[in-house]
């Protein structure tokens, strides 16, 4: 007997899914800003002249790249409060796990971008009297970030999808809400199909927007 698709229970529960979308977007935006921002900072530490800064950055990158985000989220939620007496909400645990992991990845992307800029660019800037920091800010970073934009877009997509991992600590995001709806109505086929489609519908326009940004930045080529 053919399966009869029935989306009515999902429409009845649209508020639960809408709350999930809101939670997903909230977590995504926070992790995107923190992950990419901190990633730039770690990249600069990674290429700093001071050795302790470099070591710190390398330690951070390798630790967070080589452990699963899921484990990190669980660790921040269940283990960290046992070490230090802090209250960690599911939201906070997810932010820590996803942001720090993304920072480690994007730090390496940014480092590659910065180091791909020809030494002649540094020399030309220094030769007109610009300081190292001015050179970085005005000359090197604008070019480096443009080069790594496609790779950072990938990171952004990953961050968006990683938000689903927050469901393990019962953070209210789209997958978590989907599970709830599916278990109440016994309709996993419809629910997970809709959840997947919703992710695509939100993410795809965002990715298209980054293509437009790339084209805008390519004006000088």
């Amino acid at each position: 007997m053919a399966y009869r698709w029935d989306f009515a229970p999902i429409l009845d529960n649209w508020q639960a899914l809408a709350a999930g979308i809101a939670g997903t977007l909230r977590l995504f935006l926070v992790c995107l800003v923190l992950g990419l921002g901190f990633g730039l900072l770690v990249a600069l530490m990674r290429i700093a002249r001071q050795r302790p800064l470099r070591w710190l950055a390398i330690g951070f990158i390798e630790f967070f790249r080589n452990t699963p985000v899921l484990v990190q989220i669980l660790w921040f939620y269940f283990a960290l409060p046992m070490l230090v007496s802090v209250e960690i909400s599911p939201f906070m645990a997810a932010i820590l796990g996803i942001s720090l992991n993304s920072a480690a990845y994007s730090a390496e992307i940014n480092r590659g971008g910065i180091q791909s800029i020809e030494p002649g660019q540094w020399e030309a800037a220094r030769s007109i009297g610009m300081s190292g920091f001015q050179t970085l800010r005005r000359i090197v970073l604008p070019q480096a970030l443009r080069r790594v934009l496609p790779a950072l877009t990938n990171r952004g997509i990953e961050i968006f999808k990683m938000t689903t991992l927050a469901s393990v600590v019962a953070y209210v995001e789209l997958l978590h809400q989907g599970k709830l709806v599916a278990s109440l109505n016994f309709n996993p086929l419809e629910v997970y199909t809709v959840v997947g489609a919703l992710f695509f519908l939100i993410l795809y326009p965002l990715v298209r927007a980054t293509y437009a940004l790339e084209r805008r930045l390519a004006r000088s080529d």
Partner: protein
Amino acid sequence: MAGPVLSLKGLGKRFGASPVFSGVDLDVASGDRIAIIGASGSGKSTLLRCINFLERPDEGRVILGGEPVGEARQRGGGTEMRYDERALNRLRQRVGMVFQQFNLFPHMTVIANVMEGLVTVKRIARDEARPKALAELARVGLADKAEAYPAHLSGGQKQRVAIARALAMEPEILLFDEPTSALDPALVGEVLNTIQSLAEDGRTMLLVTHEIGFAYHMATRVIFLAEGGIYEQGTPDEVLKAPRRPLTQAFIAGHRRFNF
């Protein structure tokens, strides 16, 4: 009479254990145009880059406008030079440099390239920096390319923009590091003409070049680098037409060979 604009006293540079040059003494008076020639690897470019400290010299001193750059400190029997980053940034404002590979900022328009030093380093307001940058572009004949990006220029045009970028800082000395070596032969002329017109304005300049003919016509003095130092120097006629020492003679003969 005013002292030299630039003096090098016993300047030396090593890469690892091998010395590039050592004990270079040079006085540059205002209006001097010094061509630095020599075989590949003789340290011409390195010498030039030590003057604005893109390379740190390992020994000796650079004296700009009568003021020694850096502080000498006694340390473990010898003297060690200490250079303050901010002092070097100020020095580089006074010493312009033009590179073999142009090194224009590709993400900025031509006018923004020329304005960059004025705005970021000299902190001049944009609406004040702009006419000044345009005037420098007009000087190199590229005012009509102000809004273009470097990628849309020919090599010769790029190098002229790079010259305008250096000029905008109103440097006391201009350093040219093989400014035509990366150019198509057809584009060399326009860059040499630009440099020639700067020479006619009485600008002080040091030029590392392989264009011996141009050095002959433009320079007030020619320096031949070999064996880790200044091997021979004099007027263009002395060094290029009647070199006295064997390595200079061989070098000039090698360059003359295919001239007709």
